[in-house]
C-alpha cells in the first residue's frame, strides 16, 4: 500500500466517522435547532474528508476540481437550507429546547 493509499484510507475512515456522528446527532439531539448541527457541520465535514480522500486518488486535475465543486455546492445547499428551515421554524413559533 502506497503512502497516498494510506492517506486516502485515513481520510475516508475519518469521513465515515463524521457521517456516523452526524446521524447519531440527528437521532439523539432534542430539538430541531440542535439537529441542524448534524446537517450543517458533521455531514459536510464528513463529505469534505471523503472528497479530499478521493481527490488524492484522482487521475486528473479536472476530476479534483469537479470534486471540490461538488463539495462547495453541498456546503452552499445545506447552509442555506439550514438557515431557511431554522428561520421558518422560529417564525412558526417553535421554541429552542432548554434543559
Amino acid at each position, binding site marked *: 500500500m502506497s503512502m497516498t493509499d494510506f492517506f486516502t484510507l485515513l481520510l475516508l475512515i475519518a469521513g465515515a466517522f463524521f457521517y456516523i456522528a452526524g446521524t447519531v446527532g440527528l437521532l439523539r439531539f432534542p430539538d430541531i435547532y440542535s439537529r441542524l448541527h448534524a446537517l450543517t457541520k458533521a455531514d459536510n465535514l464528513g463529505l469534505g474528508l471523503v472528497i479530499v480522500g478521493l481527490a488524492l486518488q484522482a487521475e486528473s486535475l479536472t476530476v479534483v476540481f469537479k470534486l471540490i465543486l461538488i463539495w462547495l455546492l453541498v456546503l452552499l445547499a445545506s447552509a442555506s437550507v439550514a*438557515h*431557511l428551515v431554522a*428561520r421558518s421554524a422560529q417564525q412558526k413559533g417553535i421554541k429552542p429546547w432548554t434543559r
Partner: protein
Amino acid sequence: MTLLQWLFDGLLGVTLIWLAWQTLASADLFKAIVLFIAFGLLMALAWVRLNAPDIALAEAAIGAGLTGALLLVALARLNAVAAKTDNTESNRNAKQRFAPEDSVRTTAAVNQGFSNKQNLFRYSLVLMLSAVAAGLAYAVLSLPPEAPGLSRNVAENLYLSGVSNPVTAVLLNFRGYDTLLEMAVLLLALLGVWSLRRLPEQYDSSPGPVLDMLSRLLVPLLLLVAGYLLWVGARAPGGAFQAGSVLAAAGVLLLLAGWRLTARFLGWPLRFALIIGLAVFVSVALIMMLSGGQLLQLPPAFAGALILLIETAATLSIGVTLAALFYGSRPQPEQISARQTDSGGENE
C-alpha cells in the same frame, strides 16, 4: 468484494421496499411525501448500482428534486383549500351528502359498517396480489440467464447514429418516435393542467435575503450544468432529458424565490419556448422525408449536428414545460409565470 456488493444491494433493495411500504401506509400525508422523496433518492442509488448512469441522472433531477417539490406544493394547496372552504358552500354540500359527519369520519363509518365485507375484500386482494407477485417472480427467475436483447444491433449501428453514447443514439436516432411522442405527451399534460380552473397562488411572498441569494447563485450554475449535460450527452451519460430537468429545476427555484415573468414574455415567447422542441423535431423529420429518406431517418453525415440541434430545442422545451407544470395553472399577465423563457434562452 462480491459479498460487499451483495450486502449493499440487499440493504438497498430491502430499504426500497420498506420505504415504499412506509410511504403508502403512513397516516400523515406530509410524512408520506418526505418518505417518497427519500425513495426517489435511493432509486437513484439503485440506478447507479445497475450501471445505468443516464437513468441515475434523470432520477436525481426528477425523482429526488422535481417530483418532491410538485407533491409538496400540491399538498400545501390541498391544505390551504381545506382551511379556506371549511365553512363555504362546497363543504356544506359535502356535509349534506354525508350528514352529519365530515367526510373523513364518513369513510370510517362506511368502513365500520362494511367491515366484514371490507376485510374479506382486503384478504382476497392480498391473496390475489401475492399470486400475481409470485407469478411475476417465477417468470423472472425462469428467464434464460443470458439475453442479448437489442444491444448488438445498437452497437453495430452506433457509427451511423452520429453520437457515441448508445442511450442518446437510441433516444434520438434509432427510436426517435418515442422521443417525439414523449414531447407531445409533455405538451398535452401541460394543456390539461392549463385547461383547469386557476388555483390560488401558494407561495410565500417574502422569500428573504438568503433564498434570494441562493437563487442568484444556483440558477447560473444550474444553467451551466444543463448546458454541460446537453453537450456531453453525445458521448457520455447526459442528454436532452437530463439537461431539461436540470433547467426545469432552475425554473422551479426561480418561481419559489418569487421571480415572475413580465407580461412581455407571457405571450409568444413562452409559447415559442414550449413548442420549439416538438417543432424542430417534426420539421427535421419532415425535411428528411421530403429529401428522399424516411420519416425520422437522419443521414449519417449530418446526424451528429442534427441530434445536437434537436436536443438543444428539446432541452429548452422540456425545461420550460416542466417548470410550467410545476407552476400549475396558466400564467396570467397581471400576476404570473416563470422568468423561464429569458433565463432558459441563455442556455443555447
